[in-house]
């Protein structure tokens, strides 16, 4: 995965590959045809699945966004009126703002999980136990966790406020107060995702070749300098991967909102874009409008991800 600085290996020796036949990738060569066929069959399954369940419904959705479909009857073409409605819809902008506000949890989560990974990289007692404990929220059902946290955040007798009481702090009613509902959801999401990021960081840290550290130590680098100049840059590809996937996932956050704040929070303060479009589609029978919102969100995510890829391609430490 990482570009190795590499010494003298078989791949570097400049042999005539066709003669030796070590890595024949030429299509005309009959030597590996049956394997190519098998490879093709392996690939075709996910591709078919992807087209059937992602591309075709996606295309239908884009088409539906240009109609006034109500989810039950016929689709009547109305052009871009759904999009103009959307731009003028205050709730759309409010929910978009909520969605991006909730992404503050991403850097917090990354920093936290990175520190945890560095910590767990050491040979402390009970390492394995800690890894399991941190990973359990990741594999737990999102719906179950949302219900759990909903009770924990209860203003009267929830666990969170009980703990705050020990410190003499009078906890607010987290999920009913427009000012605290988003931080509450951020805390819950960070808690849930930290195990996953931590594990990835752990793997990355452990894959940094020891030779680098030894060389740095010989040159007299302090632990902090070793961390800053070796560890951190070498895990940048992981950071890149996590940021991208978290942004894509975070912009589609729905289950937590629907369970913890079924009405979108006081004054729609915790409603996200996907939750809003779900409301429009199923409660208000405006499937065409909801498709428009979905398409807009999709385009937005695509643009953001493209920008990130571009920035990354100009960096030194990239994924191959």
């Amino acid at each position, binding site marked *: 995965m990482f570009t190795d600085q590499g010494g003298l290996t078989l791949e570097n020796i400049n042999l005539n590959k066709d003669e030796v036949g070590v890595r024949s990738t030429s299509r005309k060569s009959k030597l590996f045809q049956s394997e190519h066929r098998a490879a093709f069959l392996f690939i075709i399954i996910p591709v078919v699945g992807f087209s059937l369940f992602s591309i075709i419904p996606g295309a239908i959705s884009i088409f539906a966004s240009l109609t006034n479909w109500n989810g039950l009857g016929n689709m009547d073409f109305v052009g871009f009126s759904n999009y103009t409605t959307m731009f003028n819809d205050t709730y759309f902008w409010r929910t978009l703002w909520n969605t991006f506000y909730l992404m503050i949890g991403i850097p917090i989560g990354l920093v936290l999980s990175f520190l945890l990974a560095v910590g767990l990289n050491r040979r402390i007692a009970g390492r394995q136990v800690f890894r399991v404990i941190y990973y359990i929220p990741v594999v737990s059902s999102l719906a179950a966790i949302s219900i759990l946290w909903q009770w924990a955040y209860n203003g009267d007798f929830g666990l969170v406020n009980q703990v705050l009481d020990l410190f003499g702090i009078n906890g607010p009613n987290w999920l009913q107060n427009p000012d605290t509902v988003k931080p509450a959801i951020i805390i819950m999401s960070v808690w849930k995702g930290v195990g996953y990021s931590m594990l990835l960081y752990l793997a990355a840290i452990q894959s940094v070749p020891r030779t680098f550290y030894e060389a740095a130590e010989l040159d007299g680098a302090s632990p902090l300098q070793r961390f800053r100049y070796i560890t951190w840059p070498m895990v940048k590809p992981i950071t890149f991967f996590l940021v991208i996937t978290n942004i894509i996932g975070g912009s589609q956050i729905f289950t937590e909102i629907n369970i913890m704040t079924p009405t979108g929070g006081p*004054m729609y303060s915790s409603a996200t874009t996907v939750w809003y479009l779900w409301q429009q589609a199923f409660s*208000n029978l405006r499937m065409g409008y909801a498709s428009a919102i979905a398409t807009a969100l999709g385009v937005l995510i695509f643009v953001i991800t493209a920008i990130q890829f571009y920035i990354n391609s100009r960096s030194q430490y990239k994924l191959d």
Partner: protein
Amino acid sequence: MKKILSTGMLLSALVLAACGNGDSNDTGTNAGSGDAAGGSEDVNLTFMFRGGPDEREIYESVVRQYEEDNPGISVEIIATDPDQYATSLQASISGNDTPDVFFVEQGSVMAYVDNNILLDLTDLIEQSDIDLDNIWEYGIDSYRYDGEVIGEGPIYALPKDVGPFAFGYNKTMFEENGIELPDTDVPYTWDEFVEVGQQLTNGEDQWATGLNVNWSLHAFLWSNGASWLNEDATEVTVNTPEFAEALQFFVDIENEHNLTPSVEQAQTLDTYQRWMNGELAFFPVGPWDMSTFNQLDFEYDLIPWPAGETGESATWIGSLGIGVSQNTAHPEEAFELVKYLSVDPDGQQQLVDGLIQIPNLIDVAEDWASDTESVPNNKQEFLDIVQDYGRALPGAKTYTGQWYDEFFINIQPVLEGDQSVEEYLEEVQPRMQELLDNARQ
């Protein structure tokens, strides 16, 4: 050869894994269908509904009864949780897999009929032995639709139930505090209500009431002569003086007269829980609450809601209907099932005994209400609401409820006293009107 075989096995394993890769949201449970006991005709019906655990049990036993009485027909039951029902049903309809028999919400009737989803049951009803006079008129009319308004025209569903939203009080608390019990026929005026409430509120563990604006505001509005919509449901009339007065009174109950737990105390949890603990004097009661409330430590009973300017109580009646899909392959059998679930005397008796709802059949209901010994003594109140002073929720008369929901989204500042009632109503009326106009297209 071996390679092809193992590739094939691996591929099929991948396909199966891909199919199973989905969200773990379990939206339905398929209770097994009964055996088709002989008969050359093997009819399969699907019945989709929602309800709490007690309700589901009873409905399933009614379906068993139906299968027993009609050999050759088997019914596949799909039961969902109440909040997932709308989504599941809509998904089935979009997928051309509409269940033969299913629950219909009042607010959805117009949309479903216009999109040819519900079967017109009028002829089937006439040909059957159903006595429409013995069913609550409100229940039947809620599912009449002539293409323009609800309440007139062909019948598209039979009522599953009618749910009058009555007002209850804590009898034990009144007796302990030596206060005269409320009259079960004459409603309190608003001033009397405040007065009695203040006598019972001590601010610490006992209050007059704790009302949720989403459900209780209507009683105050309507009995003050205000309404959400005009006569033909084309205009939103929330910015009238009567409406403002009623909303102001509602806000004052909490802020001025301090008859309810404070904002912090009430928002966190339920005034519902406080009522169950015996801390509140008054609380709304629906038929669905009876089974829970009957087991509480105190005795409760029903009274008419406090009345405003008009001097008469008013409240809303909820309802769910049972309809038949227009595309069903077996309309008569499906209708038979609907009949069973809606008006079969044994089924109704079971539901009443389980304290789930009031019966749909008027004679069964009156018989039940004549029992004034068991709690609540004044069951007649439920019947009065259905026959006299109850009316439908505003959302039932319009295409979608979006304009109605808009009212409640930003109402919090008004309830807390941060925004004036008049200001809010002026602000929200145009938005609601716009949504209503959109919905009517």
